[in-house]
């Protein structure tokens, strides 16, 4: 199977026009294109151009799994229309990687997740381990054996412990294991930090690396301090396999820098979903520079270098680009004496000189999440002045967002103080805080309060209590600025990723806060919208607003920030000018940062001994004209490699998973690990527990359940669950049992001749009732004890797998349940975020029904209090459903739809011991019953 050559199909898109449900505007407009076998294509375009929809059309997920208005046209794979081909066949041949790492991983263990696609294709179980091992090797996630563990970063087998970049590579491994003929990457790094992004790209590059003409990207990434792992892959796994020469690649990206050396051809879509440009990277990015720019697409740095030197072709490697740039600088410059200090960056000095008095001051501030043993932010002291634009950078989990939240007064530090204009934040009235401090959360979905885009923006203005006409005017203006004016009546949740983010930022920019904190405001935005947003932000800064941006985009930082704060493990490790951070190689590495492409180019040129103009960001580079005079000294830093943290940083979030279970993923199934009860087949155990509970319902004396409870306690003790722990977990059940006890004691019907001991109203105490109540209460507790023992000794995944294999649970339901179960724990963290976000937006200015507003204030507040859980539940369900529908598409993309025969990687075999266990359980209960009833009858 793995040795087969890939014969990539030719893909023909003819006159494709598509409209989404709920939108009048078309998403793709008469798109025609051909992807030749083995071609490597970039599809670019402004946000909302229909790039992702096009990707879904290429492998038949539209229309097979996603309904749209298919207005006209066809997509053909080797001459056959996608709407007619079986979905399983299509997804086998064409693999797709989406952007959200959380909405693609299906199962909770690495091997199981990779196997998911293989299972759906009916690949024999015996072939799976090798395919999985190869795929893992190819993405740099080979299983670490105990022997290797000492000298390597251990790869955790739990998916929930992987970082975003590692999760993306895991999904890529899942695709590769199925050996697809075409690989589609739909903004695969949009949600990742710079280092995570670099590892994904270097993995992709190494997969395509068989072709000797294209090894530069590897070098490119290694030089940026990320590629240690990938260089190993380059010699192993798939790299030398010639068949990869003929696998087609379709990349969808706003920013082409990272993939440029891989590409054969670029296709650019415009705002209306039409094909605007197509050609070689050189044709498009150098030849049609102005068109590309006018479409709002970022020009790759190398294209700007080519433009500067008047060349019509792109450099082929970073080295070549750096040499070209250096030579160009040498030709146009008259170098200054070497002892002159580098010029500070003029455009990054504060527009308003910072006043002496800080606007916000943190003093020894720490924050620790509940249930965490480590501070997310520890002992930070800093001040922010009016007119500063501060960027906070660092790896995922370094404490950036938490620091931002404290600066905006959203969360209160667990130690230290925050002061606004010298007044401790606690003493600033809540209304003032709300007006003066604004925070925009990273995930826009958490903070939408309106049911239309317009209503959501209006809610933002309600804190200022303006008259209606002023509100409407400002909202119209904000809609225009955010480029959402056509979507004023759309529901915020139906917007694209980029549009959602623009809406959430626009809401905060509507008001005039003194301090504005934006968490990742430019994620997934095209160049045009990023520039527009930054223009608005810098406008505010010029008026004296303090803006703090939490971001991974160092190009943005270099271009706009007046000051940058780098964080690592909760501490501030750098606070100063962006240019100084970008020159500090060890610091960048320590913070998992990566020099942005323009700065990297200039730095590389300086390393090669050239003196270059001061280029720290793309804008510097693009503003260069043939005559340039200022220079800065090239400073030389030693290069060393750095591996990406594959593990989610400790303490970045609360531990995931409701109950942790030891699991067995080596394909051996149960039987090799755990106590004797854990080794039993879950379906058998399940059946036994249900039957035992049923048998107990025929018992009406207190002694039998009591004796049974004792037996269960002993069994629990043999599996290492002490009686105390069991009793503690049974606490709630005992409360319930108490109810059964007293209702029966006082309310049971009185048999003939039974004396009533006490009577009051409907209540009457009898001995019969008391015994009855005691029996039922003990029955409840002992049934629950058995159930609890079952839960504590059964791995949920294995239970579902076993129920599918032996218990007639349809596999589609079983695996859907497992997929949902994997991401559920994350929703708890999400609920915390949602609560914070809604507090920021003001609970009382939400989309409450008009009815609440007409009622009196006190009552209104009370109704608000009652309806709050409902509102939170609604939002939680909304977020969960959004994630689930995204995951459903990813599951179909891995062959979950249209399965003919499915195989299983993980099995739950039935053994003789399981039958013995079942029989023994029933016999024990029977014995307990016989003995106890005998005792009750013949005391």
């Amino acid at each position, binding site marked *: 199977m793995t040795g087969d050559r890939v014969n990539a199909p030719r893909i023909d898109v003819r006159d494709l026009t598509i409209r989404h*449900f*709920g939108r*009048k505007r078309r998403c793709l407009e008469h798109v025609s294109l051909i992807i030749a076998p083995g071609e490597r294509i970039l599809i670019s375009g402004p946000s909302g151009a229909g790039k992702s929809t096009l990707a879904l059309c290429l492998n038949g997920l539209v229309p*097979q*799994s*996603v*309904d*749209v*208005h*298919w*207005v006209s046209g066809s997509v053909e794979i080797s001459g056959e229309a996608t709407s007619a081909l079986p*979905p399983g066949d299509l997804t086998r041949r064409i693999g797709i990687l989406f952007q959200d790492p959380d909405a693609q991983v299906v199962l909770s263990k690495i091997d199981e997740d990779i196997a998911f696609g293989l299972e759906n294709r009916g690949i024999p179980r015996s072939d799976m381990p090798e395919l999985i091992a190869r795929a893992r090797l190819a993405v740099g996630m080979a299983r670490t054996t105990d022997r290797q563990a000492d000298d390597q970063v251990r790869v955790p087998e739990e998916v929930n412990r992987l970082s975003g970049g590692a999760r993306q590579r895991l999904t890529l491994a899942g695709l590769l294991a199925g050996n697809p003929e075409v690989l589609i990457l739909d903004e695969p790094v949009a949600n990742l930090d710079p280092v995570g992004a670099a590892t994904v790209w270097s993995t992709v590059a190494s997969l395509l690396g068989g072709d000797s003409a294209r090894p530069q990207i590897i070098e490119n990434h290694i030089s940026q301090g990320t590629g240690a792992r990938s260089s190993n892959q380059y010699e192993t796994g798939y790299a030398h396999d010639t068949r990869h020469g003929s696998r087609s690649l379709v990349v969808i990206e706003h920013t082409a820098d990272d993939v440029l050396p891989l590409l054969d051809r670029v296709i650019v879509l415009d705002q209306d979903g039409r094909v605007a440009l197509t050609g070689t990277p050189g044709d498009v990015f150098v030849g049609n520079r102005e068109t590309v720019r006018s479409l709002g697409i970022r020009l790759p740095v190398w294209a700007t270098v080519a433009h500067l030197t008047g060349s019509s072709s792109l450099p082929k490697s970073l080295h070549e680009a750096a040499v070209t740039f250096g030579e160009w600088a040498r030709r146009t410059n008259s170098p200054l004496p070497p002892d002159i200090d580098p010029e500070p960056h003029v455009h990054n000095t504060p527009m308003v000189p910072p006043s002496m008095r800080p606007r916000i001051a943190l003093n020894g501030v720490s924050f620790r999440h509940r249930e965490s043993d480590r501070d997310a932010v520890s002992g930070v002291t800093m001040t922010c002045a009016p007119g500063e634009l501060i960027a906070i950078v660092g790896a995922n989990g370094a404490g950036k967002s938490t620091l931002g939240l404290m600066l905006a007064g959203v969360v209160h530090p667990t130690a230290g103080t925050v002061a606004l204009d010298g007044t401790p934040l606690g003493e600033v009235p809540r209304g003032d805080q709300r007006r003066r401090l604004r925070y925009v959360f990273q995930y826009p979905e958490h903070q939408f309060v309106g*049911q239309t885009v317009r209503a959501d923006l209006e809610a933002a203005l309600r804190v200022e209590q303006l008259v209606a006409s002023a509100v409407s005017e400002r909202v119209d203006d904000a809609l225009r600025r955010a480029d959402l004016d056509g979507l004023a*009546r*759309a*529901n*915020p949740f139906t917007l694209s990723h980029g549009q959602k983010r623009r809406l959430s930022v626009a809401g905060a920019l509507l008001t005039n806060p003194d301090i504005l904190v934006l968490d990742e405001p430019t994620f997934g935005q095209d160049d045009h919208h990023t520039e527009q947003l930054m223009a608005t932000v810098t406008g505010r800064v010029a008026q004296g607003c303090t803006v703090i941006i939490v971001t991974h985009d160092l190009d943005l930082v270099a271009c706009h920030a007046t000051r940058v704060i780098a964080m690592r493990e909760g501490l501030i490790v750098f606070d100063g000018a962006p240019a100084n951070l970008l020159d500090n190689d060890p610091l960048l590495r320590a913070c998992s940062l990566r020099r942005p492409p323009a700065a990297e180019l200039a730095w590389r040129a300086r390393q090669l001994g050239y003196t270059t103009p001061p280029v720290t960001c793309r804008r510097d580079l693009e503003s260069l004209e043939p005559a340039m005079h200022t220079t800065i000294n090239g400073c030389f830093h030693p290069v060393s490699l750095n591996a990406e943290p594959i593990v989610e940083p400790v303490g970045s979030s609360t531990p995931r998973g*409701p*109950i942790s279970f030891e699991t067995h993923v080596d394909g051996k199934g149960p039987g090799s690990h755990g106590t004797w009860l854990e080794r039993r087949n879950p379906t058998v155990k399940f059946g036994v*527990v*249900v039957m035992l*509970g049923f048998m107990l*319902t025929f018992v009406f004396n207190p002694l039998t359940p009591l004796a049974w409870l004792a037996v269960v306690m002993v069994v629990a003790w043999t599996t290492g669950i002490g009686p105390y722990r069991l009793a503690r977990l*049974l606490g709630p*059940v005992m409360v*319930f049992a*108490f*109810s*059964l006890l007293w*209702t029966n004691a006082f*309310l*049971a*019907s009185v048999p003939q001749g039974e004396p009533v001991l006490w009577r009051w109203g409907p209540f009457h105490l009898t001995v019969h009732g008391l015994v009855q109540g005691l029996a*039922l209460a003990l029955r409840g507790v002992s*049934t*629950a004890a058995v*159930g*609890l023992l*079952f*839960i504590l000794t059964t791995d949920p995944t294995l*239970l579902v797998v076993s129920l599918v294999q032996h218990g007639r649970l349809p596999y589609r*339901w079983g695996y*859907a*349940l497992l*997929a*949902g179960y994997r991401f*559920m724990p994350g929703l708890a963290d999400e609920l915390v975020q949602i609560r914070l976000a809604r507090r920021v937006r003001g609970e009382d200015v939400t989309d409450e029904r008009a009815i609440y507003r007409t009622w009196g204030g006190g009552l209104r507040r009370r109704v608000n209090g009652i309806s709050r859980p409902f509102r939170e*539940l*609604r*939002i939680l*369900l*909304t977020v*969960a*459903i*959004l994630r*689930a*529908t995204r995951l459903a598409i990813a599951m179909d993309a891995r062959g*979950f739809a*249209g*399965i003919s025969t499915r195989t299983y990687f993980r099995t739950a075999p039935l053994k003789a011991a399981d039958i013995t266990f079942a029989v023994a359980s029933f016999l024990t209960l029977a014995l307990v019953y016989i003995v106890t009833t005998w005792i009750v009858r013949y005391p």
Partner: protein
Amino acid sequence: MNEPQAVRPSRPKGPGTSQAWRTTDLMVVVVVALVFGAIYVAWAGPYEWVAAFGGTPTQEAANGLWFVAGLLGPYLIRRPGAALASETLAALAEMLVGAPWGPSLVIYGVLQSIGAEAVFAIFGYRRWTLVTMVIAGIAAGLVSLPYSWWEYGYFELDVPVLATMLVTRTVGVAVAGIIAKYLGDALVLTGALKDTAIGRARIEEV
């Protein structure tokens, strides 16, 4: 604009079913089940304290909440089998999350959805009004009554007590129907359900 109808693609066919669900439908029901599984576990605390002091009649009223998933799932998906699937999976999820009652919950899951499923079937999976939801809730509550009263031995209680319990139980499950409808409608308004039957039925073009 002369546009053809939306493409109705051939649904993925699963073994043994004539009209298998799309993965999206499946996942929506699973999410409802899992979220409610967690809520059910959380609800068990207050429920049991209410029961401890209010006795079986209040307990029966508070019982209603356990029926919401089995009503909400079908309300969103509008397919045969959705009630059965959502409530049973919610019970399974409740067990996975760690409810001490364990596997016996799954029996309740099945029993608590049969009545609702029958009502939705009688209405041909076409009528989704408040009345339908309340009737479905009551049907679910009544169908599951015999087993639950048998398991907890309620039939031994006085007849007036049983009558009160019947009334409170009916009120509880009727409220569950109302909650499901209210929550379903609120969810549609958020726009997250645009790919499901209910979302499609109510979508407005902008």
